[in-house]
């Protein structure tokens, strides 16, 4: 290129940089997929702040309660969001939660395996189920909606049948005693920052039990996993090559294939991701309750997808964010717990869930139009 051309092009570039600053921060913010969920979460907190501000909902104990519920949902919602960005659905998440639960409980209780081996076994099964979902969708080209709907029934049925066959019941209790001194279980069963809560208690800043220990004992493990999952997923989506491949695979499968993106491998790995997230959810719940139940996680797949949609994921793929899904989960968790602190009958929760989703979809559609047709 001649010197003249170079100077022209560099002028152009610096010109663009100047114009870039003119785009207002607000406009940039308006184009982010998680905007709706963040705004929604703020509205929800304002609402409960007014309606239930003096009820104890926002005490340390109450806050940890709704954070725990949000975090559990958030762990699977983030994985579901990543899969949706990659252009697919997983309706078997809820069934996988039940299946993972008995994969931990039956070996640990009936076969005498150490708990940590049972947990690893459950994760290995999750990788298998996810891989199977993925390879089926990629190889057959069938909609993942159908493939994973089949898997929803197969997994739930197998969970029930296997459990009844081995144990004669549908619940497997007795896990709590195994948690102590286990090399892995603590990662899913330990409250953290206990010292902080003890200190807050001793300063009389948070509510105490009659024996003087604080009512809220520490940050539950679900919240730690939830925060870690949000950060990890955001890092993957925004900062890695694999993240770009996820957007590309969901945005335009053929185009991505033509420029060398291994679309099949990306999708399979995302299906493994949702199954593994379901297993993290299951492990936390099973160790917290001390028992596995074959019906655990029922309908959770739909809540996870709802949270992802509220968080800005498009059903058509290629667009969305992990932070959005995290806020979507926070909205649902906050409302599902907050509703107990209000005079509203809890039966109305599902009505809210549905209405929220509808509003989110309409809003997201508008945002997508803004992003792609702003000229």
């Amino acid at each position: 290129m001649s010197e003249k051309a170079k100077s022209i092009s560099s002028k152009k570039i610096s010109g663009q940089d100047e114009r870039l600053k003119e785009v207002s921060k607000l406009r940039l913010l308006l184009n982010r997929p998680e905007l709706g969920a963040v705004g929604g979460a703020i509205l929800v907190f304002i609402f409960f702040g007014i309606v239930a501000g003096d009820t104890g909902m926002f005490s340390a104990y109450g806050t940890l309660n709704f954070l725990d519920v949000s975090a559990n949902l958030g762990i699977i919602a983030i994985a579901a969001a990543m899969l949706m960005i990659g252009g697919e659905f997983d309706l078997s998440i809820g069934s996988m939660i039940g299946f993972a639960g008995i994969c931990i409980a039956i070996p640990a209780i009936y076969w005498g395996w150490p708990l940590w081996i049972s947990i690893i076994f459950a994760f290995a099964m999750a990788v298998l189920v996810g891989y199977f979902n993925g390879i089926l969708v990629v190889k057959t080209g069938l909609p993942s909606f159908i493939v994973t709907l089949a898997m929803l029934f197969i997994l739930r049925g197998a969970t029930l049948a296997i459990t009844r066959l081995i144990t004669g019941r549908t619940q497997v209790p007795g896990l709590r005693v195994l948690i102590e001194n286990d090399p892995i279980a603590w990662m899913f069963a330990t409250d953290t920052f206990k010292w902080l809560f003890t200190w807050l208690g001793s300063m009389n800043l948070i509510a105490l039990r009659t024996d003087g220990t604080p009512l809220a004992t520490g940050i539950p493990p679900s919240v730690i996993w939830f925060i870690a999952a949000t950060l990890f997923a955001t890092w993957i989506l925004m900062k890695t090559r694999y993240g770009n491949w996820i957007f590309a695979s969901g945005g335009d499968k053929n185009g991505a294939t033509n420029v060398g993106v291994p679309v099949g491998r990306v999708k399979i790995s995302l299906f493994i991701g949702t199954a593994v997230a379901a297993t993290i959810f299951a492990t936390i719940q099973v160790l917290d309750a001390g028992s596995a139940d074959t019906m655990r996680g029922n309908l959770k797949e739909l809540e996870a997808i709802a949270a992802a949609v509220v968080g800005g994921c498009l059903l058509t793929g290629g667009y969305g964010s992990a932070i959005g899904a995290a806020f979507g989960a926070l909205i649902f968790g906050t409302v599902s717990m907050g509703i107990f602190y209000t005079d509203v009958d809890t039966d109305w929760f599902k009505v809210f869930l549905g209405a929220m989703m509808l509003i989110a979809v309409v809003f997201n559609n508008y945002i997508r139009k803004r992003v792609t047709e702003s000229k």
Partner: protein
Amino acid sequence: MSENLIEFNNISKFFGKVIALKDVTMKLKKGEIMCLLGDNGAGKSTLIKTLAGVHKPDEGEIVIEGKKTVFDSPKDALDMGIGTVYQDLALVPLMSVTRNFFMGREPLKGLPFLKTFDIEKANQIAAERMGQIGIDVRDPSQAVGTMSGGERQCLAISRAIYFGAKVLVLDEPTSALGVHQASMVLKYIVKAASQGLAVILITHNVHHAYPVGNSFTVLNRGKSLGTFNKKDISREELLGMMAGGEELDKLEVELKEMDRLSKN
């Protein structure tokens, strides 16, 4: 002969009993724009896919810079410097200019086992490249969906060149575009050729092809009707040679006939 950058000698491709291509020969020098003209079903798509390494020719040979070559996969063709821009462009409207530009070939940085996508570098290169072709990307992180059809086409071509294309294969780059947008794309194609690339421009639009082409190959029903230099052939002759020419003549006669009958 070896001054040809790329040669396709007597290429044939069969699908079962169907003869998709028969004895097609094309030769291109550096800086040359060859237009491949043909109506729908003339075998243009098959030829493109053979050039891009998707199909292997059943007969004939491909010679690049004097060396006989066989493409086993699209990646082989890419590695040999054949950059194909398909009609769908392989662009994702919801993704940013930068993310599209580097899709599948993202620049990395960081530790050996913890490499991350070097967005800053990618943004800088994408903005630079788009700036060079005079496309005004306000912000390389804006979505491709906000760009016009012509700009998208130029982005796809620019991407192919950046990733080392010596021969550009362009599939109907102007078919969905208005006059202004099409001329912008054609201008960029001429510029690319002037920088030493060989361009194969596939189109059914003679009016777009004629001003920019150095030579013209006409395909009809899987066969080449020959390659003509610009000085040897007129736009009308080219039009007539494509299957559409005769058909249009016939249509004109029929319309006149109808007109005459309706007047009576």
